Every structure is written in structure tokens, then in C-alpha cells.
């Protein structure tokens, strides 16, 4: 059994070693400075540039759009379900929303490309067939249940006496929610948001299908971009020989993504452990 437990540790060590190994090989040929500052990413072209910034900006742009969509809706759902909704309604709606998170991401990609993009093109006629906006919105829909479910759990865990005290002071439900419940459940809510961001950064299929494959440094959501994950998919689908520089680029891109999500996950873990309020 100890051995089984150690497999989880070996996985982590494996990830770190694999990435270090391939990334060291990559950075022998491409300087770290070029990797971090070059504004073009064209490793598959004749004129090669290895700047991670365009991929990073694509990743951050789609994730940002996703959070802008998911945060207000997800939090409103959480507050509504915990403060306003009748108990039975909450009981049926919560699993239904969690079903949104169980749908395979490739299915979301289909929606983004076939439903959301044509719809958005009616609003923005000059929008391209692939765009950060469409992928970001659909990704936002996907992560709504992450935020709503975990935040609702956090709000639900706040002791009833706090709520009653607030009502006793004559507060409305809205005032209770925003001035008592949310501050009390803040750590849980923040953790849910961080985990949702981390999930959005690593999301692959939606952006691979609907965001396009053109790495570019832009904040314009209407043009095609490429995320780190989409680039890894693009290279994997092609026939790239093992050990070539192109092969190593996917590990260099992957380690960038890994570092980002690793930091976010650790922050959420620390918050969960440290600021978890204990009530009597």
C-alpha cells in the first residue's frame, strides 16, 4: 500500500524530471531570454522564432474571458442557492449544474465552433471563424459549476447563528449575503476561483477546436489566437520526430503551463489550510 501511495509521488517526480530533461535540451538551443521576450512563436516555419509570449497571451486572454463570464454568474448562483432558493430547488439544481462539469470538453469545443461562433458572428460581422471570444465564453460556461458549487459549499458551511444574528439586526438577505456570508466564506470562495482559473489555463480541447492555431500577441478577442495547450495538440497531431527541436518545444511550452497551474494550486492549498475559519 505504501508502494501505491508512492506511485503518486513518482508521478510528480516523473513530471518534473521529464520536463526538466526536455526543457534543458530546448534551452541549450534557444536562450531563455529569447524564449521569454521574443514576440513571435514560429517553431514550425522556416524562419524560426521561439517567443512564448504569443502563446501565453492567447492562454491568458481565453482564460480571462472565461473568468469574466463564469465569475459573476457562478457567484450569483452560489448566493442565490444558499440564501434565497427553497431547499428542494437547491437539491435538484445543484446536481444538474454539476452535470455541466461532467460533459467531455471536446463536446464543448463542438458547441463553441458550431453554435457560439455563428451566433457571435451575427453580432460582430467581422469576427473570424476561430476566435478567443467564442472559446473563452464556452470555457466560462464550463467552469461555472466549479465556482458555483464550491462557493455554495463554502457559504453553506457558515454557521446559521451568524446569519440569524444578521437578520436579527434587520438586514435583508442581500445585505446578509454580501456583508456577513461572503466575508465569512471568503477563503472558500477564493479557492474556488483560483481552481477555476487553473482549470481554464490548462483547458485544451475547447481552445484547440474553436480558438484557432495562429500564435499572436494580441488582446483582440475577435481574431484567432493559439494557446499553449492548443500548440501542444497541433504539434502532437503532426508528425514531429522524437528528439528534434520542434519536439522539445512542446515540453518547453508545457513546463510554462505547469509552472503557472502549480503555483495557483499551491496558493489555493495554502489558503484552504491557513485561512479556513473554524467556528464553534
Amino acid at each position, binding site marked *: *500500500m505504501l*508502494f*501505491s*501511495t508512492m*506511485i*503518486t*509521488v513518482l*508521478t*510528480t517526480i*516523473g*513530471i518534473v524530471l*521529464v520536463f526538466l530533461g*526536455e526543457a534543458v535540451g530546448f534551452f541549450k538551443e534557444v536562450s531563455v531570454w529569447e524564449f521569454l521576450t521574443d514576440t513571435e512563436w514560429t517553431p514550425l516555419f522556416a524562419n524560426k522564432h521561439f517567443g512564448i509570449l504569443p502563446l501565453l497571451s492567447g492562454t491568458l486572454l481565453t482564460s480571462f474571458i472565461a473568468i469574466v463570464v463564469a465569475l459573476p*454568474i457562478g457567484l*450569483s*448562483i452560489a448566493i*442565490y*442557492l444558499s440564501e*434565497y*432558493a427553497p431547499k428542494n430547488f437547491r437539491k435538484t*439544481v445543484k446536481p*444538474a*449544474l454539476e*452535470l*455541466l462539469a*461532467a*460533459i*467531455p*470538453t*471536446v*463536446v464543448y*469545443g*463542438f458547441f463553441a465552433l458550431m*453554435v457560439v461562433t455563428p451566433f457571435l458572428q451575427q453580432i460582430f460581422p467581422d469576427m473570424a471563424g476561430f476566435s478567443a471570444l467564442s472559446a473563452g465564453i464556452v470555457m466560462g*460556461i464550463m467552469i*461555472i459549476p466549479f465556482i458555483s458549487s464550491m462557493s455554495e459549499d463554502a457559504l453553506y458551511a457558515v454557521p446559521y447563528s451568524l446569519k440569524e444574528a444578521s437578520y436579527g439586526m434587520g438586514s*435583508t*438577505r*442581500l*445585505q446578509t449575503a454580501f456583508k456577513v456570508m461572503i466575508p465569512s466564506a471568503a477563503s472558500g470562495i477564493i479557492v474556488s476561483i483560483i481552481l477555476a482559473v487553473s482549470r481554464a489555463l*490548462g483547458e*485544451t*480541447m475547447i481552445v*484547440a*477546436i474553436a480558438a484557432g492555431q495562429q500564435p499572436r500577441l494580441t488582446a483582440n478577442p475577435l481574431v484567432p489566437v493559439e494557446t499553449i495547450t492548443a500548440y*501542444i*495538440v497541433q504539434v*502532437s*497531431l503532426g508528425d514531429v520526430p522524437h528528439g528534434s527541436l520542434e519536439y522539445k518545444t*512542446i*515540453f518547453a511550452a*508545457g513546463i510554462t*503551463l*505547469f509552472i503557472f*497551474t*502549480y503555483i*495557483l*494550486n*499551491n496558493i489555493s*492549498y495554502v489558503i484552504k489550510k491557513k485561512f479556513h475559519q473554524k467556528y464553534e
Partner: protein
Amino acid sequence: MNKLKINRLKDSSFKIWGIISTLIGLILLVIFIGDILDDGLKRLNWDFITSLPSRKPERAGIYTALMGTLWILIMTAIIAFPIGIAAGIYLEEYGNKKSFLSRLLEINISNLAGVPSIIYGLLGLEVFVRMLKMGPSLLAGSLTLALLILPIIVVATRESLKAVPDSIREASFGMGATKWQTIWMNLLPASMGGVLTGVILALSRAVGETAPLIVIGALAYVPFAPSGPMDEFSVLPMQIFNWVSRPQHGFVINSAAAIIVLLTITIIMNGIAVYLRNRWQRKIKW
């Protein structure tokens, strides 16, 4: 208007906004599924399920991909189930929870659960496909997916063991049972519902995963269904991804039909998980 009225107005308008937000999620779910059914149902028939892939959309089927998905599902379960449960039991029952090692293991597992799936794909590509020379085979694919869902199973096992009250453990020890007998005869049967629920949910996630399998080199086009663990394979999500990326409208219809099959599998698995959870919750009262 006085302040009280304004506050009450704000309160009720937020209530309406809350209902709208909740419904947005549900309505989108209905629109999505309705759209898929609308596109795919007319294409979905027995021929579609039993046909081999083809370049012509009207003749293409999902047989090889469906078989690949079933292979992956079973092999991943065989690999991940014992390891995940053993690790969960160790962490919950044997490990000293305050020791440095246990804390490290716990942080590690919670971290692994947050690692993007595509990173597991890169790990599988380097370790299973290249170093252990498995090639883009079913075995490499299921090992990769097993690592991916391991943290979920470990956490589910620990949670359900935690839910078994200490009095059960003490009673068993009091009867002279060893630690292993206690775990095997009392704790595991009592927590099996939660464990199985976690395992099935984890497997349903594995069935829908595409990214790690693309990275390890699973193919979109496989002429025959796999017949052994070392064969090359395709899975339903790969097939859908491949069809979605093609320009012909016929393939879009095909991908919608394949999505119906994939969603059916996912929903059945989630349904079983919910059923098990409810059944066990009702049966066991401490």
C-alpha cells in the same frame, strides 16, 4: 423612497438576478443537448455504430473508436482501481497524519489533481511511449489516464473511510481483529459506496479525455478495432475532434451523432454513481 424600501428593492432584484443566473446555466445545458440531438439523431443508427471509419461521411462509422473507448475504460479501471484504493487506505488508516511525510503526500495529491490533463499526456509520451517503448498503444493510453484519475480515486477513498465512525474501528479491534482484518471486513464494506462512486466518476472523466491521448499519439484513423493491449487505437473523443476539424458538413453531422453516443456513456456512468451514492447513504445508518 426611504432606505428600507431601497434595500428591500435591491434584495428582490438580486433574487431575480440569481434566478436568471441559475437558469442561464440550465438553459444553456438544454440548448446544447437539444442542438446535438437535432443534428445527430437523424444520423444515429445501427450502421453508424458498427461501421468502420471512412473518408465518405455517409459511410463512416464509430466502431473502431467505440471499441477503443471500451478497451481504454476497462484497462484504466483495472490499473487505477487497486492502486488508488490502496493509496487511499494507506493515507487514511496507516499513515501518521501529523507526520511530515503524510503532509507532503497530501499536498502532492492535491497538486496532482490540479495538473492539466495535457501535462499527463506529455508525461505519458516521454515515459510510457518512448522510454518503455510501448508506442502509442492502448496500454500506454490507459496507464496515462490511470495516473490522471488516481488523485480523484485516492481522495474519494479517503473521504469515505473518514465517514466511517471510529466506534466501528474500536469495536472491531475490541473483538481481537488485526488492523488488516478491520479494514478488509469492516471499513471497506462500509465505505464501498463512496469509493465506487468516486471510481466511476473518475472513469467517466477518463472516457471524455481527449488531450492526453492526442499527445501520446493516439490516432484519429484506425482501420480496425484493437484486439490486444499493445494495439494502436482511437477513442470516441478523438474521432469527434477529428470530424469537427473537417470542413464537410457531413462530418459535422457525424460528430454530433458520435457526441450523442459519448454523452450517453458519460450520463449512464454518472447516473450509476448517483444511484450508488443514494443507495449506500440510505442503507447505512450509524
